[in-house]
């Protein structure tokens, strides 16, 4: 009796599904193979794999996607390819679900490496991935005589060699050949592992114009001939840089453009990035207003540029940004140039954010804000409400006084006021950085924020000289 699996229409439907899935996976692996570092960052952002496995996954996964896509397209080892595709879709769906459950606002990295605003994870992403998984399953279960190499093999009466073949019928010569093939595969794999393990990989060149890889030189020339810096010069980058002593702001922007070129950004993305950088620096629009507590200041109080950061005690990204900025203003390149203020902005989705915020404010009123905050962020994974007083003691506060201050209703009111102020200033997530009252809307890497702050400092100094 014929079963549903035997319907001849399956092979045509499956052909469409195979071509579609292959196209999706070819598109997905293309950028990942070209820019494994960006893909590794995408994987790391999910915070699921241990750090030791992130790079290996970023190196290998795109090639598996490529192999599976090509195999599906050619209908060669179709079921194996469909099995891999389905398995990968299960893995991606689980990863996205975990990220969503954690409230991460990030790019899915599916077609690496768009930003969170361009390709954010959502329940739609899960539905989409489940759809692709179902297509993979369809091919796996129903494409029994695929149009392609497998089908051709069948029509010629070929069969796969494998367990279904009668081993006893195998001749001695065949066994020898098979053993040799196995040995070659084993040796090849071992050699590959050794080569990979002992070859020191060359790291990406420093993201500056003079160190751009040759393949990016052409893009640089094209963009420099076309784009204008937003400050420091009215001509194109090419002409501005050709002057005897280019404006420092132009040099910074040019270096940033080169960094973006090196990271594989397109012309449009670089154009948009420059606009965001400009919005973070240039005057315009209403400035944010703050009620700042001098106890939360870091760096020189007389530094000409003011940076304010709204952050949550339980936001992992705040930890990176705040600690980096703190180091920069106290002992790094921003020392004496930027004064940094911290404003607590506890997020409702983060467990412990209120206790952490109250702890910060208690430490501020006891004169130990930054020692406590750095302790809290440095030992981020060990956080618990009970640990707060232990850390308070470690940085020199009296436990009873700290607890009492934390429990004081005024501390809670101050925390609410800080959150309300953030909402007035249109803060909708953390970390939120403001430079001299203007919302910083550019990239959140500390090195980029530092670069923009240095540019802000140079602008302030230049304006003072003019006066």
């Amino acid at each position, binding site marked *: 009796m014929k079963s549903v699996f035997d319907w001849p229409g399956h092979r045509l439907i499956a052909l469409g599904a195979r071509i579609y899935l292959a196209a999706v996976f070819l598109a997905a692996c293309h950028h990942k193979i070209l820019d494994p570092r960006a893909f590794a960052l995408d994987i790391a952002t999910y915070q699921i794999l241990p750090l030791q496995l992130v*790079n290996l996954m970023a190196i290998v996964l795109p090639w598996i996607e490529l192999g599976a896509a090509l195999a599906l397209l050619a209908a060669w080892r179709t079921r194996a390819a469909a099995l891999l595709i389905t398995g990968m879709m299960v893995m991606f769906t689980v990863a996205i679900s975990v990220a969503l459950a954690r409230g991460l606002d*990030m790019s899915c990295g599916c077609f690496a490496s768009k930003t969170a605003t361009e390709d954010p994870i959502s329940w739609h992403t899960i539905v989409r991935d489940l759809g692709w998984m179902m297509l993979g399953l369809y091919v796996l279960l129903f494409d029994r005589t695929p149009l392609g190499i497998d089908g051709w093999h069948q029509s010629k009466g070929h069969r796969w060699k494998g367990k279904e073949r009668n081993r006893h019928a195998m001749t001695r010569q065949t066994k020898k050949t098979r053993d040799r093939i196995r040995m070659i595969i084993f040796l090849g794999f071992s050699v590959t592992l050794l080569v990979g393990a002992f070859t020191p*990989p060359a790291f990406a060149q420093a993201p500056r114009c003079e160190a751009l890889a040759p393949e990016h030189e052409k893009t640089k020339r094209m963009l420099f001939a076309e784009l204008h810096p937003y400050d420091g010069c009215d001509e194109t980058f090419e002409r501005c840089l050709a002057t005897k002593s280019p404006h420092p702001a132009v040099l910074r922007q040019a270096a940033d453009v080169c960094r973006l070129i090196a990271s594989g950004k397109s012309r449009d993305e670089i154009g948009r990035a420059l606009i965001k950088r400009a919005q973070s620096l240039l005057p315009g629009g209403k400035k944010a207003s703050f009620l700042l507590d001098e106890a939360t200041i870091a760096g020189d109080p007389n530094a000409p540029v003011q940076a304010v950061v709204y952050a949550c005690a339980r936001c992992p990204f705040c930890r990176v940004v705040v600690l980096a900025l703190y180091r920069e203003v106290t002992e790094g390149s921003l020392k004496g140039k930027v004064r940094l203020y911290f404003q607590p902005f506890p997020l409702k989705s983060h467990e412990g954010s209120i206790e952490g915020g109250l702890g910060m404010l208690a430490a501020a009123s006891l004169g130990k804000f930054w020692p406590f905050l750095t302790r809290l962020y440095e030992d981020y994974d060990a956080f618990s409400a009970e640990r707060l007083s232990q850390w308070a003691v470690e940085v020199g506060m009296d436990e009873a006084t700290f607890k009492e201050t934390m429990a004081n209703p005024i501390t809670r009111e101050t925390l*609410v006021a800080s*959150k309300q102020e953030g909402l007035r200033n249109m803060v909708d997530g953390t970390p939120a950085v403001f430079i001299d009252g203007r919302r910083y809307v550019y990239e959140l890497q500390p090195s980029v924020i530092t670069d923009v702050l240095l540019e802000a400092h140079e602008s302030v100094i230049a304006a003072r000289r003019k006066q």
Partner: protein
Amino acid sequence: MRGVGSVDARGRRAVAVSSWPIALRDAGLFVLFTGMLAIVTNALREDGLPWVQKEAYEILVPCPETTGETTAVRPDTPLFLDARVLIIDGRHSRDFEKWHVERAINIPFDYLEPTPSDVIDRTASSRAREVLVYGDGKDPDSGEQLARELAGKGIRNVHFVAGGAPAIMAITNVADPRAAP
């Protein structure tokens, strides 16, 4: 379903495509070969990655406050008169007791604590066509914040009254809010 080794009407082997164990084996070989290719390519390319990352990646994605899209409506909105609209007063309970719009229920908004899930569930299961929230009318307005939080929790068609309770009280003759008994 034809199994491995079965023969079709033409006397041909039915299963050209591998059976499950064979498919698994082939998938394993796929991973092996593509993995080898990936590792060799990575070793040869200039911008190859080290196998093991020693320093943590700077994962810099902002943590969002979970909120959703809402619309502002005027204090004289006819939605107040629609029985299918759920009206929520987001102010403190003592303010609610002093005065509130007729039919309004009180869900006091807290800037720090999330709105309890049972309250969200009750709101979601109210079968209201739309949800209209008003708050204290301050800057920031507790009504707007509560509306955004409700929308962020998946409740649809949430509006907030621009200006909150003070704006509604100023035009009581239009919206017809009455003092609570």
